[in-house]
């Protein structure tokens, strides 16, 4: 903690992310969230969050609505800027130069550098956010062509293979408005996979779906996990968490209250908050 910290609400000054915690991170840690705080004005939404996700691991984030799950996820791919603390991906500080300036401040990266960091992290949203003016194929091809500069033909080949992988080979030329929610979400997953991400973030990927469409999306997630994708999944699907998660993390009012194996967290909750939460979702 930096001594010149000024805002009592923020134990760490935003310009002075915390030093890495005592032990140097294992070389296989893909995501390291270290002492992250986030405030929106007076609203202190994330409080001293730490999270480590290793290569190939699936972390499931649970917690009541408004507890800060989405905000934490969005801090990982810099859709939000942490107010304090820092996020490392593969050991690389996100959003800032890796070393502080001589005066102790941290040099922010340019928007192009931030975009490059983001392009290695796939994200899937609760409400899909497919591009409505592009077909399923166009949605999946867009970023590889625009961001990676992949030739159209190669991008199309890859996109078709990905649509096949999520079971939508025959829907390639349909617009999102012509697809069911479950199909749209699977296109969104294929779109994220097209950038060959090293890790994937899922923010309640099945919450906007009709109940009978949930399993088709969860199946894709399970396949991805089985293929060794590093994933952070916000979900209320406890069955999925039990089956796939390596660690389950419980958030409440901006804090990480409990974490552990699904066994520990789901079956043997310690805090009253977690017990209450589980009673409401199970």
């Amino acid at each position, binding site marked *: 903690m930096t001594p010149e910290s000024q805002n009592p609400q923020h134990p760490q000054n935003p310009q002075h992310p915390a030093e890495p915690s005592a032990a140097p991170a294992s070389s296989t840690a893909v995501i390291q969230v270290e002492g992250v705080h986030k405030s929106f004005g007076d609203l202190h939404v994330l409080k001293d969050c730490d999270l480590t996700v290793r290569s190939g691991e699936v972390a499931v984030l649970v917690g009541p609505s408004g507890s800060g799950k989405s905000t934490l996820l969005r801090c990982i791919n810099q859709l939000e800027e942490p107010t304090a603390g820092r996020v490392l991906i593969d050991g690389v500080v996100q959003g800032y130069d890796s070393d502080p300036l001589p005066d102790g401040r941290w040099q922010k990266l340019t928007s192009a550098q931030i975009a490059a960091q983001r392009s290695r992290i796939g994200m899937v949203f609760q409400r899909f956010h497919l*591009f409505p003016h592009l*077909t399923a194929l166009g949605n999946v091809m867009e970023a590889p062509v625009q961001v990676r500069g992949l030739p159209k033909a190669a991008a199309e080949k890859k996109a078709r293979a990905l649509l096949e992988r999520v079971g939508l080979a025959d829907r390639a030329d349909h617009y999102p408005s012509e697809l069911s929610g479950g199909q749209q979400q699977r296109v969104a997953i294929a779109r994220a996979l097209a950038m060959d991400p090293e890790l994937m973030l899922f923010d309640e990927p099945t919450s906007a779906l009709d109940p009978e469409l949930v399993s088709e999306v969860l199946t894709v997630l399970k396949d991805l996990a089985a293929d060794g994708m590093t994933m952070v999944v916000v979900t209320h699907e406890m069955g999925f968490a039990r089956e796939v998660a390596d660690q389950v993390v419980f958030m409440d009012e901006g804090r990480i209250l409990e974490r552990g194996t699904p066994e520990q967290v789901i079956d043997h909750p310690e805090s009253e908050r977690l017990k209450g939460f589980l009673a409401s979702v199970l």
Partner: protein
Amino acid sequence: MSTTQTPAPADAQGYTPIRAKAAPRPGTWISAAITALLVLGLISFLVTNPVLEWGTVATYLFDIKVVQGVGWTLLLTVLSMVLGTVVALTAAVMRRSDNPVLRGVSWAYIFVFRGIPVYTQLVFWGLFTVIVPKLVIGVPFGPELLSFSTRDLLTAFWAAVIGLGLNEGAYLAEIIRSGLNSVDKGQTEASKALGMSNGQILRRIIVPQAMRVIVPPLGNETIGMLKTTSLVLAVPFTLDLTFATNGIANKLFTPIPLLIVAALWYLAITSVLMVGQHFLEKHFGRGFDDRTPATGRGTRSRQAAVNRAGTTPHDPLPEVEL
């Protein structure tokens, strides 16, 4: 449950559809009869009224001066709309920027060019070569690097295009800004998450979706511009349709038939522009639920999207469907 069992063929789905007789609609017939009477009256008036001089109309409808005037008017309309759209898109993007300087410049542009009558602006651009005889590229108060004589660059035609285009841009900027703002924030987030740059997001994701609600008012503005070009005599630019027909009318001392010539041509150009608008709307409507405007339902929901976006600041004219 009595007599309706005439053996109507059951259709493919295996049931007999209802055989319905339309409810009586006397209002439709009455209004049709009244309209028919009025139209007949109008035709007889148009045919028999000697003042209209249809012979003169026929003579001058394809007069070389008139046809050239149509060409110049079309060119003025298209070029000034292109200039206006480019300027407006720039101003709209600047208005949305985080940079307060860019926001301020954009605001000032809209304030000035929307606040001064277009006629006055056209006179100004006509006199530009007098006010600014030389354009200099160099350091303010310092040495000159390059200088041009504006008289060589700024002909009356280009003065007209610039005058019309910059004025139009100020109006279009607000329309385009509302259109850009109407695109869901989730689209920007999803694009960012894929690593797209701000420019790519604007060009590939936001603008194509905004066009859907921008094109209908843009069509109205284009038709408005077609008519505004008749003011270019303020520059003075003297080859457009209105100037051509006025010139002939003054020579012949018969204003009325040449007004009809001008009116017919403006209507013809408007029709062509409407066809263009139709195809643009179809193009940018791809992927949205009302992609096929054939049923008329699509028209309503597109208009609903336009209204929601607020790209038409006033009550829009009833949309004319082709």
